[in-house]
């Protein structure tokens, strides 16, 4: 087995200059390895650093210390030391992040959003249908979608581009049981093709075969 991602001694703090420079230590030395084609679920109390960890991996938060090495074939890239363009290109080709919030683009319909990422119309339509979005919603800008529909579109957007590492931050939080199952099945299908998944979730997906490993964080550290 080969590790797609190796995190060593990762530290992250937020300095609140508006609060007199108060420093919050959110990651206090995290070590974690993700094997290719596995699904890891990250749990732990709110504020334990789960989302900050995902954001450091995605490059949307700046780590203080440590390394996050992404491996693609023979190439290794330390995301903590990478420049902006390297991270942008990693995001295009390798690492996807989905959160529970959908960044809405005005006037652009759901199907157009998915197809902008490189899918043909019929592939995009198939993906949206698989995730339970009805045809009559394809042309509708997602600003008017319900919470559940937005989350499914979010998932569609992250699945639309084939990327080997997916970071998911509570993407099934507000879904009903049926939609959750649909989402888990879509993820399992990806995992079977070799995609690595790291998901922050308060509940562990119950779909057999999906989750390989549970990691618990507490107070900025991996505890189990």
């Amino acid at each position: 087995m080969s590790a797609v991602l190796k995190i060593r001694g990762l530290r992250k703090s937020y300095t609140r200059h508006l609060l007199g420079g108060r420093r919050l230590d959110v990651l206090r030395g995290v070590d974690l390895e993700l094997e290719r084609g596995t699904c890891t679920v990250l749990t732990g109390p709110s504020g334990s650093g789960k989302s900050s960890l995902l954001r450091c991996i995605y490059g949307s938060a700046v780590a203080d210390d440590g390394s996050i090495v992404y491996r693609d074939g023979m190439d290794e890239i330390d995301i903590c030391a990478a420049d902006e363009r390297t991270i942008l290109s990693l995001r295009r080709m390798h690492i996807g992040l989905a959160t529970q919030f959908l960044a809405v683009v005005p006037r652009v319909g759901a199907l157009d959003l998915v197809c902008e990422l490189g899918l043909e119309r019929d592939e995009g339509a198939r993906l949206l249908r698989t995730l339970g979005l009805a045809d009559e919603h394809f042309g509708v800008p997602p600003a008017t979608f319900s919470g559940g529909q937005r989350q499914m579109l979010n998932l569609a957007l992250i699945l639309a581009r084939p990327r080997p590492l997916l970071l998911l931050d509570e993407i099934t939080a507000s879904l009903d049981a049926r939609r959750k199952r649909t989402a888990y099945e879509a993820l399992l299908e990806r995992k079977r093709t070799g995609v690595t998944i790291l998901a922050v979730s308060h509940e562990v997906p119950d779909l057999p075969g999906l989750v390989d490993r549970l990691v618990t964080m507490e107070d900025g550290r991996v505890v189990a």
Partner: protein
Amino acid sequence: MTPVLALHDVTVRYPAGNYGCREISFDVFPGEVLGIVGESGSGKSTVLACANLDLVPTEGSVEILGRDVSRTRGAERRKLRAQALGIVYQTPQQGLDLAVTAGGNIAERMFGAGHRSYRVVRERARSLHAAMELPCDRFDVAVRTFSGGMRQRVQLAKALATSPPLLLLDEPTSGLDVSVQAKTLDLIRRIQRDHGLAMVIVSHDLAVIRMLADRVIVMREGRIVERGLTDQILGDPQHPYSQLLVASQLT
């Protein structure tokens, strides 16, 4: 790869001794969108004016497609502007002749770039006019009678008329109501994607920046205080001023 636009240590000092901007360096590659944020008076528009060759830096240089053009003048500068640069100003009267028709404004730029066939120019101007979702029956009407949102779209059509690789946008949606703003932003986003344009967008509206820019520069008192990926600057700003800026935004 050669950057479409590169500024190297650009400083603008006015005769009175005050600074417009100080030691500004950045580059923009084909297809990249760079956002510049900062409060009024922080030097954002000065930087854009240097990029548009409206202003000659006191020190430093501006390169377009790998060539130092900061001190070009006259006909050469006009030609470069027509071929390589498109700009949308915050106030339409800066970029348009309001007494002239929409078609005339768009055509003027094409004639400036060396087009000679009246028929070709008129056809292209018409298709750009339509692509910017401007009503067909207003093509031969003076821009003076246009609404703010329509004027901005005429500016966009004009900027695109010569298919430049670089588009500069100075607060392109400020002062527009939300639905017109959404339409304008959607058009800008589509243009950028369809043509793989390099873009520099100045805005104090962080939502606009979030939607359009890959990378962001934060300016204060003429200097760059922080730079990074858009979601990093907006989600994990490091500099005290960036934190203030992000915290001040209504969301």
